[in-house]
């Protein structure tokens, strides 16, 4: 029987599922244990798995990420929480230079099965340093897998896949989605990395979206449908590995492509996806590929300003409509 749970609850369920299954799975981070996480994504785990496996850390992001790297080298499958994705910058050397490159530099001697989970994205009026969408930072670094689910079901399925993956995964949980609800089936749920999901089908245009942009793209597609435009919406779910097959076949079917990206424009994930489409499906395209992104600016804190900055349903609808005119 399917259950209706929140995205936030799904995080704890996913971690519990994996920690139950495999006693080498550990969770560390700031306030993850006694407090159950500042976003309440890890409540109950301390009580269930004990203080050795669920552990609070000092405010030492380099030590946190370094610790999971070292532990992954020596037999654990650790999960670290970095409270806000913005703080990935404080331990970026450990992530981008050490974790991402170690397997390659050692020619496979050292495996790093670890997950770094982090609260990503805007819409909650936290301002420029606590609201960034940084999936593209991780995507740009060879050696990192990059996951960003949009539904509670995918949170569980992809977290399970990430924890079981033999490579390092950066797992982006979207702050704006924590309260959203969705169905999850009973029993163990394990997904696969690198599979996009076609969440809506239409023949006029393809909208590629990620994380919190997926529900917006879906809503936009409904409004477009009312205007007679039928759009396919693809939830990428994973940026590395990237499901180029699904992307390219959607492009082939519609000939018109839009990305909806929460990141600021320059070098966002959509830039990469567009460059792939243009290189490999150029002759399938009927019109310019259009990227709908946050402007290339830091995010303002004020609600009015923030809402007008991140791509909105209206902006998606208007952009698609205008382009198809």
């Amino acid at each position, binding site marked *: 029987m399917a259950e209706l749970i929140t995205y936030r609850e799904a995080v704890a369920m996913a971690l519990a599922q994996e920690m139950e299954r495999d006693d080498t799975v550990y969770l560390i981070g*700031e*306030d993850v244990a*006694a*407090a159950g996480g*500042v976003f309440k994504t890890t409540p109950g785990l301390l009580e269930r798995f004990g203080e050795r496996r669920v552990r*609070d*850390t*000092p*405010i*030492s*992001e*380099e030590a946190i990420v370094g610790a999971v790297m070292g532990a992954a080298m020596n037999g654990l499958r650790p999960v670290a929480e970095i409270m806000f994705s*913005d*703080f990935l*910058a*404080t331990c970026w050397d450990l992530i981008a230079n050490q974790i991402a490159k170690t397997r390659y530099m050692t020619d496979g001697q050292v495996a790093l099965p670890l997950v770094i989970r982090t609260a990503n994205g805007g819409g*909650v*009026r*936290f*301002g*420029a*340093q*606590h609201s960034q969408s940084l999936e593209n930072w991780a995507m740009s670094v060879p050696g990192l897998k990059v996951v960003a689910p949009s539904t509670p079901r995918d949170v569980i399925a992809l977290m399970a896949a990430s924890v079981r993956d033999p490579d390092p995964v950066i797992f982006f949980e979207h702050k704006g989605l924590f309260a959203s609800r969705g169905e999850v089936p009973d029993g163990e749920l394990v997904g696969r990395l690198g599979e996009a999901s076609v969440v809506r089908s239409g023949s006029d245009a393809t909208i590629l979206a990620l994380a919190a942009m997926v529900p917006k793209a879906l809503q936009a597609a409904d409004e477009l449908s009312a205007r007679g435009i039928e759009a396919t919406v693809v939830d990428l779910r994973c940026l590395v590995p990237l499901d180029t097959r699904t992307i390219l076949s959607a492009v082939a079917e519609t000939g018109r492509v839009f990305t909806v990206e929460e990141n600021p*424009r*320059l070098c966002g994930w959509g830039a990469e996806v567009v460059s792939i489409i243009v290189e490999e499906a150029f002759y399938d395209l009927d019109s310019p590929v259009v990227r709908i992104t946050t*402007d*290339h*600016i*830091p995010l*303002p*804190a*004020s*609600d*009015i*300003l923030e809402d*007008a*900055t991140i791509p909105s349903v209206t902006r998606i609808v208007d952009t698609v409509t205008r382009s198809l005119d």
Partner: protein
Amino acid sequence: MNVAAVAGPDLDTRLRIYRMMLEARRFEERSYQLFLEGLVKGTTHLGIGQEAVAAGFSAAMRADDLTFCTYRGHNHTLLRGAPPGRLMSELLGRSEGVCGGKGGSMHLTWAPTGAMGSYAIVGAHLPIAAGSAWAAVERGTGQVAVCFFGDGATNIGAFHEALNLAVVWDLPVVFVCENNLYMEYTPIGSVTAVERPAADRAAAYGLEGLLVDGNDPDVMYETASDAIALAREGGGPSLIEAITYRHGGHSRADPGTYRPDEEVRQWLARDPIPMYRTRLAGAGASEEQLGGIEQSVEAWIEAAVEEAKAAPEPSLDSIATEVWADGGSRWRN
């Protein structure tokens, strides 16, 4: 603690400090109310209970000195001279806000009077404060930079790098750890290798470990005056650990229930504002003087709140301004 009891400054200064603490307290109480009314969005981190640190320091600083603080920095920014109505407007995300609504509660800045920013990523502002002090030396301005941070910040790398550089370069910067015993929900003692997260580490930078009562405004004023004078005279940086307590939770989302009742009770009994009022009354301040300040602060805060509530929402055009010094945000020609 190193400074047990001090004479304190003259009565005028003490009355000024009393007023400052009261302003900070009312400002934060009202901002919390406005939060509950749905006018302040996002998050807020209140310094209620910690006002003695901010007031003692602000009173001891020179007008052109520079303050660097954290997201828990309404009090510092206000007391270093940010206009209260515009500060409150920023919390409400209005166009008149000190940062035009772009900064928000965690990023209050009022550069005209030296409130050089509230920093929301733990530890980052310690090297920045050191850098501003370096410029002060090179330009011969005589400014001192004062950098406030929490106990939790003592475990992050930037703390270590900033302290070392400041000492090696002999910079006029005062580092002030407001040790309120907790990070967000986790007690600092449970994740720190030493008992006094700042004071016990001063020696690692060749500094004296200064541990002071952060709830005593006179102690804070004297401590601040000494450290600032030392820095101004070329004596280099100080590291001060002020023990204090926030009355509420970490942020608006936190009821603070992880703290033992008895601990909270004891600290509420050490609320710096009534304590100081009693002390000042004993030291010759008249009920009229004290009551006058209190009434005046009530009027002051009402005016600030009214100003903020009346302030217009920011124009959407402002989104694309001030990324660059040309005023705009164009990244292409």
